[in-house]
């Protein structure tokens, strides 16, 4: 017999919205902010994006060089491990495919790193084939600092902590090294549709 909360009815989303919500998620219409520390404010003149680790030579773009790369605008649903989801959010950014073009590497994993020391780990293949971007605009506006501006990783098919705010680069790795939240109780992979929130899920 499944657990029933006496007297709880709950609020239902429209069926077409509900079918887009992974298990245990609820819909929000604002954009909550969750970060482990203060918001960094790196001047664009000091900003760069680097692909390092199992790559020779490493690749590096200044902000101006990065913004000259081809970008695209995508509409995706996003899911936060704390339980909220937003549907049809619009992002503009550079596909990781573009950043990785021509890179030969034996790496199977990536540790994304950010201003402020944040890191998160992902399998490299999850960043390729049109599944991940380094986004610099949200809803057509420059990405606000509290949401990760000037640029954040966007990996919408995984819980949002994988979409590292204030991202400054990708470290290509042979092994899977746990990032910040992955070392603090959260799942190594984080697939919302399999509800991989915490260690042991």
């Amino acid at each position, binding site marked *: 017999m499944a657990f029933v*909360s006496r007297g709880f*009815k709950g609020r239902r989303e429209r069926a077409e919205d509900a079918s887009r919500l992974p298990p245990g998620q609820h819909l929000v219409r604002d954009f909550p902010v969750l970060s482990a520390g*203060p918001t960094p404010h790196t001047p664009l003149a000091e900003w760069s994006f680097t692909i390092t680790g199992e790559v020779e030579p490493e690749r590096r773009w200044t902000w101006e060089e990065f913004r000259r790369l081809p970008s695209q605008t995508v509409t995706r649903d996003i899911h936060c491990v704390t*339980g909220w989801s937003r549907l049809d959010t619009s992002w503009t950014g550079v596909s990781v495919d573009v950043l990785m073009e021509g890179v030969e590497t034996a790496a199977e994993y990536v540790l994304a790193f950010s201003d402020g020391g944040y890191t998160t780990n992902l399998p490299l293949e999850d960043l390729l084939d049109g599944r991940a971007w380094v986004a610099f605009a949200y809803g057509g506006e420059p990405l606000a600092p509290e949401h990760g501006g000037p640029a954040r990783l966007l990996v919408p098919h995984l819980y949002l902590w994988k979409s590292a705010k204030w991202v400054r680069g990708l470290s290509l790795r042979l092994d899977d090294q746990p990032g910040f939240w992955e070392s603090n109780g959260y799942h190594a992979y984080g697939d919302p549709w399999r509800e991989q929130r915490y260690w042991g899920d």
Partner: protein
Amino acid sequence: MLHVPGWPRHRAGQHVDVRLTSEDGYRAQRSYSIASAPEERRVALTVERLDDGEVSPYLTDEVTLGDRLELRGPIGGYFVWEANQASPPLLLVGGGSGVVPLMAMIRHRRASGSRVPARLLYSARSVDDVIYRQELERLAALGDGMTVYLTLTRAQPAGWRGFARRVDQEMLHEVAWPVQESPLTFVCGPTAFVEAAAGTLVELGYDAGSIRTERFGPTGR
């Protein structure tokens, strides 16, 4: 206040996920900070009722003594504080119900007999919005190194001697430990509150790496 069979000792600052299931199998899940100290036998959650919320009105209005809840946790390994001799001074900055996980730290400090100097700066709208007011007054009066600073941003009772404005640079400068004492800081509250408080502390010269934040807001809209 929950009796949780098999509860593993939590760490002050951690949260739980509460999952509600209706008779027809619909589920809703939310995270709530644990307010009790790890040393306490029962687990206390403090839930702020959001008028347009889905879960908080159920927890505050419907649930009564003897009801059962489905919990997952304790969760979180970063916004946590453990009392030990080597701890640097503790600075706690809370806005509204953001004081809840900070209260777990304060209660843990007391229950463990810690003498780590601690300061709480707590911003609330009015004196009636101050959660745990009497307990905080009692703890502050013990003279064991814990100081409580209140700021009431909207309404102040007659004769109020605390702060009466939003947390700002001058207030943090007055309340926070000197930069060279390298306090460990926890800031919790609504997004705008945390952005302002944590950002100001960085401007004042505190090491961003020693400022831990937890942001929340009603997310039902």
